[in-house]
């Protein structure tokens, strides 16, 4: 039983970072209707910027981390405004390829600037401490991730519910033309969505960084976040969070009880099962296509 609880708890811990990545993907999918393959690298570059600020320039945490998030926001805005928006008569696959291209460029840039070696990121709390409840362990870093993820989710909920910008964003996603007619600057809204998504992803990146920083660190979380988002329905923010936690927990239970080797692919099996039952994911309203 203890073992089971531990697995579930570890699953929730790792699910939190998947959830942040998944939230970022859903934000962008709702804004630009593209599965965003640059999500991981949009967080990677800010993580390395933070690393550079902390180690090369000795900037304290309370300046470096907010500065990183602002940088991430601007990066996201730039990718939308400077590149994606320039696409002429885009189709979905074309947009996917553009995000893959951006992913390669950012990854190449990071590896060029920082080299390929693994690095250790200074961080205010140690990733080696843990909180022990009975026989169950949860590391303080995981705890922090969980708390931060919850705070972000809550603030996003509040943002979409009560802020003018958030409501405008929702309106744009529901019906872009109608929103534009109501005087909402839909293009600007889309750009901001990218910015927010990038910042949320970077939070996940920063929370993964204390364990190890290397250029290819964001691929796995990005894919798992994507999986979680798809399980949840790809257009629903709570769905993405829920899906990410399902993926995290099932992964751990599967790794613990069935096979460790196939742990990393079990997420995709969940997806196929879920999608066979509900083709648009758990939380999305099923979209009925008209002829």
């Amino acid at each position, binding site marked *: 039983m203890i073992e089971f609880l531990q697995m579930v708890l570890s699953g929730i811990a790792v699910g939190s970072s998947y959830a942040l990545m998944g939230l970022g993907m859903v934000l962008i999918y709702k804004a630009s209707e593209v599965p965003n393959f640059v999500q991981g690298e949009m967080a990677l570059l800010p993580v390395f910027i933070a690393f550079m600020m902390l180690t090369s320039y000795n900037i304290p945490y309370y300046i470096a981390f907010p500065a990183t998030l602002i940088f991430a926001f601007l990066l996201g805005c730039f990718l939308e405004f400077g590149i994606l928006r320039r696409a002429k008569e885009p189709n979905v*696959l*074309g947009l*996917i390829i553009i995000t893959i*291209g951006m992913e390669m460029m950012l990854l*190449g840039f990071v590896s*060029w600037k920082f080299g390929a070696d693994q690095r250790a990121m200074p961080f205010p709390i140690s990733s080696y401490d843990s909180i022990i409840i009975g026989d169950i362990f949860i590391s303080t870093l995981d705890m922090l991730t969980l708390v931060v993820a919850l705070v972000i989710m809550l603030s996003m909920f509040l943002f979409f519910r009560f802020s003018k910008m958030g409501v405008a964003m929702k309106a744009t996603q529901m019906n872009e033309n109608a929103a534009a007619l109501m005087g909402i600057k839909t293009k600007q809204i889309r750009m901001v969505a990218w910015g927010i998504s990038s910042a949320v992803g970077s939070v996940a990146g920063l929370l993964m960084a204390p364990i190890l920083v290397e250029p290819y660190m964001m691929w796995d979380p990005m894919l798992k976040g994507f999986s979680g988002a798809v399980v949840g329905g790809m257009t629903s923010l709570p769905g993405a969070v829920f899906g990410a936690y399902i993926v995290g927990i099932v992964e751990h239970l599967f790794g613990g009880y069935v096979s460790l080797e196939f742990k990393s692919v079990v997420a*995709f099996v969940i997806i196929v099962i879920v999608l066979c039952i509900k083709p648009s994911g758990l939380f999305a309203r099923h979209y009925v296509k008209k002829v």
Partner: protein
Amino acid sequence: MDMKRDYYEDVRIFTSGAVIFWTGILFLLLAIFPFVAKNYYVYVVNYMAINVIVVVGLNILVGFTGQISMGHAGFFAIGAYGTIVLMTHASFPFLLALPCAGLIAAFIGFLLGLPALRLEGPYLAIATLGFGITATQIIGKIKMFGERQGLHAPELAIGGWHIETDKDFYFLLIPITIALVIIARNIIKTRVGRAFISIRDADIAASTVGVNLTFYKTLAFAVSAFYAAVGGGLYAFVLRFIEPELFSMFMSVTFLTMVVVGGLGSIMGSVAGACLLGFLDIQLRNILEIPYFGDWIRMLSESYFTLTGASNIQLIIFGLILIVIMLFEPLGIFGMWIRSKKYWLAWPF
């Protein structure tokens, strides 16, 4: 000039004398190429031809039927392993083992097509991506497939013809490639192809006019899996050693990239996309050897970046090329071709 007036004009292979002429020239060039070019370039062309096979097949699925797949490295792996295992364990001759491996992959593609019937867009993307990753994981567990230690390709001989050098392999590979490209074109031009296209454009409308969605969607998966597997079987003999890690997600993504950059729904576009990106993929490693540009990059690396990471400029250039092509032409290379053709046909107006 491009107007089709009857069915025969639409299905015939050569639409005009000019096409016959240029195709003849192309075949001639392909025939003399290995005798004039350096052996290395024969190898590069072999590599490109394998990409052409896979990408043409993938385009039937992605470009013509409108189903995305990010897991074709899985079929590629099945083809590579299937061919080698059929040859070594069942002592099939190569020319039998290759289509058999293709048929096995086609069957698996059919199975994958079943859940895919209900999925589309990002849902299908992630499900197929998962298939690609899972396939290599499973292969890595099978003893007969050498587990994680990999497999060596056996000697390749057809009848009394021992295929050893790149040049020999070229003469085996290019006819297969040409045949498969022509077959793909014919599939598209016939009833099956029209069914695929109708599914892409409006699947509900297609089903109301009598297109069997289940049959044609799974068929598209099976056909493209067959193509990928044939490509994989040939690839095994280019490398002569295969292991599961080769068939990574990056490979699947690269195939998809080639389809889209070449031009969705165009066979010749796929050929062009596979050739261009295949060539870049293999040739960009020499980018720092380019006079002036390479020195400039080194200088830049020394002052602002790292010299040890300077090779990563490859990734940046590759990404840039993808972005630039897709930004300006959603139909990729094929779109550019159409546009320039129109321009010159209408010139000077």
